């Protein structure tokens, strides 16, 4: 009989056994009666000889039972009954744990989606990002040029495929309004690299890279919306940047490359970069570093081995082309996943650490709840011990109860996670790569289960320790006049721990909040209110450089004359959109070796830019329309640039030679004609970037954004600006329309996310630790009711009683605060990695966090202390 059958056969076994024993007795009685014994005597004798029927039946039945499982079920039933008797305790406990586990699970679901999940391609662990490495700069900071990429591709023996990619806006015209698409220019073997295929049609082939080839693979979404979702699209041409491109494939739904960015809509090959609208096509400019590269390691090749071989290739390139490559003697390889998650990893791990603390705090709270509850039941336990229950049996009973509650809390936490993920994640947009893929799946549920199990162990430690080490029989002996015990040392230790953990969370929240305020309140260096910015897609053959300049002249002219527009200008890049363009330069009279040239951010602007953006001119002059290609080359720098490179002297009049090239004349020596205020370029940088501004007419690179200062609400201008653009050229798409304030808040979205979460955790931490303190103090007061009553009866002033409670509270709180502050300072380095512009050991912040905790602790102490002081001695002594 299997154990399974046995579970169900039990009733029959019992019935058989009873009948068998009854039969045995009957047979014996009949025999005795037949031998002449009176019936009553016979019955007695038979029973005597048989022994205790009930005990025999029990022993016989026990043979079949599973004592462990059956006790567990009995314990479970008992636990549920007990919990239903005190719903307040059950709800408080389960809720505490649900918050602790739920917060952890929710953060884990984000960490899993963003950091842990592999890239969605077969054998994704073999995908690596490949970067040129320069001893002068951080790893992964430099791009590769086409000629170098081609050499990498030909000379490496470690990659199955090595693919270049760069993003570009591409306009789609032909059917309906012109739209700007996010495009990627890639080398032909993108799909083989990823070991995937387009859902429809084919991937690129090597000859799609040929100079005249124009083929495109479109995203599923673009195909379904704009292109009508017709499978017949394959082989047809669409107009991209006003050139016909043959659609050869439609990517699978959900496919995106590069992974984690905004959804790319079209992929074209580098054939388009062969065209020459500069002096030389970029595919032949070895110094034009604009590409990212990703490779798939050959089977059995380690990333170290690949790095060594690629270093060899790079070294040889540096020898062959020293002018362009001597500064990049090596390569830097990184797993593609690590590259993607590099920025998000630290803040997310920080959050995971914070919720970990929160869970510990919740556990401590719950453990304390269990301890007080056990204390209430001490008499029950003592009684059960006295009548013969095994101590282990009582421990098991208490454990079952806490486990039941923990798992109820765990189940509730899953509901909470789903809610959090649904509510919070969509609000984050695309600021963090892959975050939109956050979902509550099997892995997340597994995590919830593991967290619940860990919690169950943690919360059971304290009660188990208490049960195994305390003399549980004392309460019975104590009787009505027993001595009074304070709250257990264990409970006090837990409260100290809670206050410490709560304070650490508060400190983290305070630091992040201060960082956030610092970021959002600091002067961005320009005036973002009443600014409207947008871009126009004029890349392509229809707009060679001369026509671009003419177009922008016309555009600025017409926008400037619109009602409600103060001024308009061009800028590339816009302030606060990240440090995307940098250039090395030589300072006249200070020769430096090529590899040690100073670098700076650059921006290309038109004369009205500083006025439109609200950036003050500090020294010298601004740009004018006379600063064009036929006049002497000039520059304007910001104050950070002047302070860094010309400290203690005036930068105006100094001459530098930046490596930015406008035409065949090559780099030119430029005179600094003005110094302007610091406008922030990187949204999260702690100190202002050095920037040099070029006049657009002397460096007419494609494609600047337009910045418009409005007299009133900037968004009101959008319709009239759109009609201006389409009146110049109906085929031009207008995109990235943003107000200055939007740019300002977009840059800090990840920080906002972190801060909001952390403040939430800090608040919950504060609440939980105050509740913990309140619980222990109230409990102590209840336990000491008689003692306090006697004191009052003997003439103690309420004030003295108050002090009694306050003293205990003060000891606990002080210990907690000291430990918490020490912990916060120790964790400061970790926090410093994600907090911007704030010293992680800032004493004002730490002390204000401690003050908040102290205030909450005071509230938690006040009620129990007040209750103690107002104890009526008569009632108190009558309570027993």
């Amino acid at each position, binding site marked *: 009989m299997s154990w399974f059958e046995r579970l169900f056969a039990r009733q029959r*076994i019992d019935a*058989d*056994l009873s*009948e*068998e*024993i009854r*039969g*045995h007795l*009957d*047979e*014996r009685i009949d025999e005795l009666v037949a031998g002449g014994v009176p019936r009553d005597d016979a019955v007695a004798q038979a029973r005597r*000889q*048989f*022994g*205790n*029927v009930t*005990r*025999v*039946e029990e*022993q*016989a*039945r*026990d*043979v*079949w039972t599973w004592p462990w499982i059956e006790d567990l079920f009995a314990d479970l039933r008992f636990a549920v009954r007990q919990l239903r008797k005190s719903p307040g305790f059950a709800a408080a406990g389960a809720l505490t744990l649900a918050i602790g586990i739920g917060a952890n699970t929710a953060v884990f679901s984000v960490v899993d989606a963003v950091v842990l999940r592999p890239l969605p391609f077969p054998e994704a662990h073999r995908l690596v990002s490949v970067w040129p490495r320069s001893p002068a700069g951080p790893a992964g900071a430099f791009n590769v040029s086409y000629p170098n990429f081609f050499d990498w591709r030909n000379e490496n023996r470690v990659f199955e495929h090595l693919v270049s990619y760069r993003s570009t806006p591409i306009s789609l015209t032909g059917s309906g309004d012109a739209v700007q698409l996010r495009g990627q220019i890639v080398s032909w073997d993108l799909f083989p690299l990823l070991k995937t295929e387009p859902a429809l049609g084919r991937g690129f082939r090597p000859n799609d890279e040929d100079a005249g080839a124009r083929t495109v693979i479109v995203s599923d979404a673009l195909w379904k919306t704009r292109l009508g979702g017709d499978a017949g699209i394959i082989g047809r041409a669409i107009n991209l940047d006003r050139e016909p491109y043959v659609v050869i494939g439609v990517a699978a739904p959900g496919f995106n490359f590069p992974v984690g960015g905004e959804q790319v809509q079209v992929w074209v090959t580098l054939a388009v970069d062969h065209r020459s609208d500069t002096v030389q096509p970029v595919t032949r400019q070895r110094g034009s570093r604009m590409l990212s590269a990703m490779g798939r390691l050959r089977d059995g090749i380690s990333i170290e081995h690949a790095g060594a071989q690629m270093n060899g290739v790079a070294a040889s390139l540096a020898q062959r082309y020293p002018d362009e490559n001597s500064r990049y003697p090596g390569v830097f390889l990184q797993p593609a996943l690590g590259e993607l998650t590099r920025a998000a990893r630290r803040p997310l791990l920080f959050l995971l650490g914070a919720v970990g603390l929160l869970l510990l705090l919740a556990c401590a709270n719950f453990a304390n709840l269990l301890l007080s509850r056990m204390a209430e039941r001490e008499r029950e336990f003592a009684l059960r011990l006295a009548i013969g229950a095994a101590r282990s049996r009582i421990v098991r009973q208490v454990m079952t109860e806490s486990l039941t509650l923990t798992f109820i809390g765990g189940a509730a936490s899953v509901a909470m996670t789903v809610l959090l993920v649904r509510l919070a994640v969509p609000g984050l947009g695309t600021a963090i790569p892959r975050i939109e893929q956050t979902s509550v799946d099997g892995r997340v549920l597994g995590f919830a289960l593991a967290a619940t199990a860990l919690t169950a162990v943690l919360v059971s430690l304290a009660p188990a320790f208490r049960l195994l080490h305390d003399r549980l029989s004392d309460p019975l002996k104590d009787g009505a006049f027993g001595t009074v015990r304070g709250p257990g040392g264990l409970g006090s230790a837990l409260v100290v721990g809670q206050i410490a953990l709560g304070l650490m969370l508060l400190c983290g929240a305070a630091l992040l909040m201060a960082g956030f305020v610092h970021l959002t309140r600091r002067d961005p260096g320009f005036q973002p209110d009443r600014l409207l910015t947008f871009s126009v897609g004029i890349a392509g053959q229809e707009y060679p450089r001369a026509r671009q300049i003419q177009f922008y002249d016309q555009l600025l002219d017409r926008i400037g004359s619109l009602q409600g527009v103060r001024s308009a200008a061009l800028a590339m890049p816009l302030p606060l959109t990240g440090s995307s363009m940098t250039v090395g330069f030589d300072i006249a009279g200070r020769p430096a070796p090529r590899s040690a040239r100073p670098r700076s951010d650059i921006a290309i602007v038109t004369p009205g830019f500083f006025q439109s953006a609200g950036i003050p001119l500090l020294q010298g002059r601004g740009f004018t329309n006379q600063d064009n290609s036929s006049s002497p080359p000039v520059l304007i720098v910001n104050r950070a640039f002047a302070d860094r490179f010309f400290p203690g002297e005036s930068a105006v009049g100094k001459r530098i030679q930046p490596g930015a090239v406008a035409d065949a004349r090559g780099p030119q020596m430029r005179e600094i004609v003005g110094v302007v205020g610091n406008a922030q370029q990187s949204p999260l940088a702690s100190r202002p970037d050095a920037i040099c501004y070029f006049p657009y007419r002397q460096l007419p690179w494609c494609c600047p954004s337009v910045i418009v200062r409005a007299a009133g609400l900037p968004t009101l201008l959008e319709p009239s600006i759109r009609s201006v653009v389409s009146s110049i050229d109906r085929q031009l798409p207008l995109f990235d329309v943003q107000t200055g304030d939007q740019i300002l808040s977009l840059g800090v979205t990840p920080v906002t996310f972190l801060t909001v979460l952390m403040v939430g955790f800090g608040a919950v931490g504060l609440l939980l630790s105050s509740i913990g303190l309140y619980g222990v103090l109230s409990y102590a007061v209840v336990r000491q009711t008689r003692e306090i009553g006697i004191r009052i009866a003997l003439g103690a002033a309420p004030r003295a009683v108050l002090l009694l409670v306050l003293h205990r509270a003060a000891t606990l709180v002080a210990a907690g605060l000291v430990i918490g502050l020490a912990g916060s300072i120790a964790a400061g380095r970790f926090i410093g990695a994600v907090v911007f512009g704030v010293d992680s050991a800032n004493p004002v912040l730490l002390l204000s966090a401690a003050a908040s905790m102290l205030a909450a602790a005071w509230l938690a102490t006040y009620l129990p202390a007040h209750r103690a002081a107002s104890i009526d001695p008569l009632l108190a002594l009558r309570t027993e």
Partner: protein
Amino acid sequence: MHSGSVESRDLFPGALEMMILQILRRQPSHGYALVQHIRRASNDLLQVEEGSLYPALQRMLKAGVVKARWEVSPSGRRVRTYELTARGAKHLDRQLSTFERMLAGICLVLSPVKP
């Protein structure tokens, strides 16, 4: 399972099982008949508490060394008759040989020392 399930403390653990198996090898019997048999066969030397038989029988059922079925006895009673299984027979042989070796050993130790 208390060792006290066998009234006579002289019975060592497993002795009752061994005797039951041995009786059943000769002839399938029900509980009451087993008790009577033990008493008679031992010339009333072994006083088995009748009740202790039943936990032992349940243990043997569970171990699969005996099987049981309901029958009507010659005296017209509905009784549960136990019989030895093949596994039970093997088990008994092993037990007996172990027991005999043990008994021989004990006897050697207890036999009077020859001067």
